[in-house]
């Protein structure tokens, strides 16, 4: 019974049993819920939280990759990386717009990010140390994001589902581009191969953590499944990702840094060793290498840009006033 999740409902919708049953029937019939439709407050809040986090992840995610734009080792790679980071910003923009349809503003969401109330994907709290990290992020991080996001194209909330269709197309291009960077490195000099292996060693486990805690420990999962915001469990998606990625690493001639990673014929998938959840929670709670720098960089951009945003508003007001004065003459 998904109505048990309606904590903190603010009464904007009168959530009678009839209303909730009718809403559940629409969800069960795979109808899309649109912004103007009545919806349980818990559903609205869950989506605001999830879409907001997703948007913030895109924006914060511009920083680790942006760290290599000025050092990309060829002009072709420099242009491709700029375009990629720009795409991530574009994803942030449509996701903020999708969240705004639920009655929250981009400014409010930005403030929540900057003061630590809102979260973003913890993967971006790891540093990008070499050029191979750019390939690895495209391959693994965008690869994991696609696994998470393809089912969201069927999410019950229309604007989120539609945004995801476009985002997934671009992410899939990024993933191939990242893999192609890795392939080039792995066919290159010994130093380039070593760089590629080192990057895989550092990003493998954090990428597996991107799917979230094991199903038994995942707090928001059951409700989101019932609302068809979420379609597969964290562990199911993680398994799909491992099964798709291990052969890709083998093709590159790289070794996944998990001695327990082995094909299991009986389950038709790879087994993997234990994930260090202590590390996961430490980084989520602020104890990663880059947490403070990421938020500080976003805060600096926001604060340094305040005079620009203010000037744009004041100028627009001045123009409006002049136009009105001219019309009155």
């Amino acid at each position, binding site marked *: 019974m998904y109505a048990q999740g309606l904590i903190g409902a603010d009464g904007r919708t009168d959530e009678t049993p009839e209303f909730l049953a009718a809403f559940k029937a629409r969800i069960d019939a795979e109808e899309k819920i649109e912004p103007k439709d009545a919806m349980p407050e818990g559903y609205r809040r869950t989506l605001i939280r999830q879409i907001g986090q997703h948007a913030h992840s895109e*924006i914060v995610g*511009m*920083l680790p990759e*942006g760290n290599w*734009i*000025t*050092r*990309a*080792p*060829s*002009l*072709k*790679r*420099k*242009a491709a990386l*700029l*375009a990629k*980071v*720009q795409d991530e*910003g*574009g994803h*942030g*923009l449509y996701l*903020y717009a999708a969240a705004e349809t639920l009655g929250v503003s*981009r400014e409010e969401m930005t403030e929540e990010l900057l003061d630590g109330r809102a979260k973003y994907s913890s993967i971006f709290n790891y540093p990008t140390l070499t*050029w191979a990290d750019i390939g690895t992020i495209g391959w693994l991080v965008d690869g994991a994001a696609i696994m998470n996001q393809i089912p969201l194209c069927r999410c019950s909330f229309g604007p989120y589902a539609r945004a995801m269709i476009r985002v997934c197309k671009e992410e899939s291009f990024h993933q191939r581009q990242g893999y192609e*960077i890795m392939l*080039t*490195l792995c*066919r*290159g*000099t010994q*130093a*380039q191969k070593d760089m590629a292996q080192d990057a895989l060693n550092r990003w493998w486990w954090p990428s597996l953590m991107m799917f979230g805690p094991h199903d038994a420990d995942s707090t928001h999962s059951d409700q989101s499944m019932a609302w068809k915001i979420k379609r597969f469990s964290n562990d199911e998606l993680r398994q799909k990702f491992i099964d798709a990625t291990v052969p890709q690493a083998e093709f590159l001639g790289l070794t996944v840094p998990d001695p327990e990673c082995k094909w299991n014929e009986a389950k038709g998938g790879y087994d993997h060793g234990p994930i260090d959840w202590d590390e996961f929670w430490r980084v989520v709670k602020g104890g990663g290498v880059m947490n403070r720098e990421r938020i500080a*960089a976003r805060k*600096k*951009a926001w604060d*340094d*840009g*305040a*005079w*620009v*945003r*203010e*000037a*744009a508003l*004041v*100028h*627009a007001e*001045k123009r409006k006033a002049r136009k009105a004065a001219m019309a009155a003459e």
Partner: protein
Amino acid sequence: MYRALLELADDHLVLGHRVSEWCGHAPMLEEDLALPNMALDCIGTARALYARAGELEGAGRDEDALAYFRGEREYLNCLLVEQPNGDFAQTMLRQLGFAAFMEPFWRAAAQSSDDAVRGVAGKAVKEMAYNIRHAGEWVVRLGDGTDESTGRMRAASDALAPYWDELFLSSPATQEAEAAGILPERAGLRANWEQVMRDVFAQALLDWPEATWSQGGGREGRHGEGLGHLLAEMQSVARAHPGATW
């Protein structure tokens, strides 16, 4: 002609690199999308020009050899493009001034006797028109915005004033390319440029600054100190792995 194209390519790469430094740090998300676009326009043009310059040189150097394996004394960009980003006002004014020069330049270069230059011109002229519009709108908004933004735009205008003149000076190599009908004459573009700039400044309610001095030297590889740091950063990975493919 090789050297003339190199000057032009260096202008675009160095400016594109500078603009790309904003990516992820812009005053608003819309500008986080617009600035990489402007950087991509410049870098795309630089790549095409380096490729053609490399062909003409005939020494087997491709775009990356020219971009990553020349030092600051060999870079021939004008000083305007290497100026630090400063604040958003300075970045936008630098972009406007550069684009307002390049847009009529590429329009005239559509008649170039060189196929490759004509090819670049066809694409770049549209991009520079967009750059003028986007950066020009910001110069107007900031010039006629708050007291702070007006002050910052005036400061940007003062900071960049000494660097405009160099856009209109042609090095001996460029003069040859101009005489051969490969590139348009730089000096001849001044009236058009000044018209665009004065028009934007008038809309921004700013006084057009009369330069009291001007600074050149870029075309002989005499730069400010900032360029060396820009190149050190840009070239660090490529130079640590000479001969590698990326």
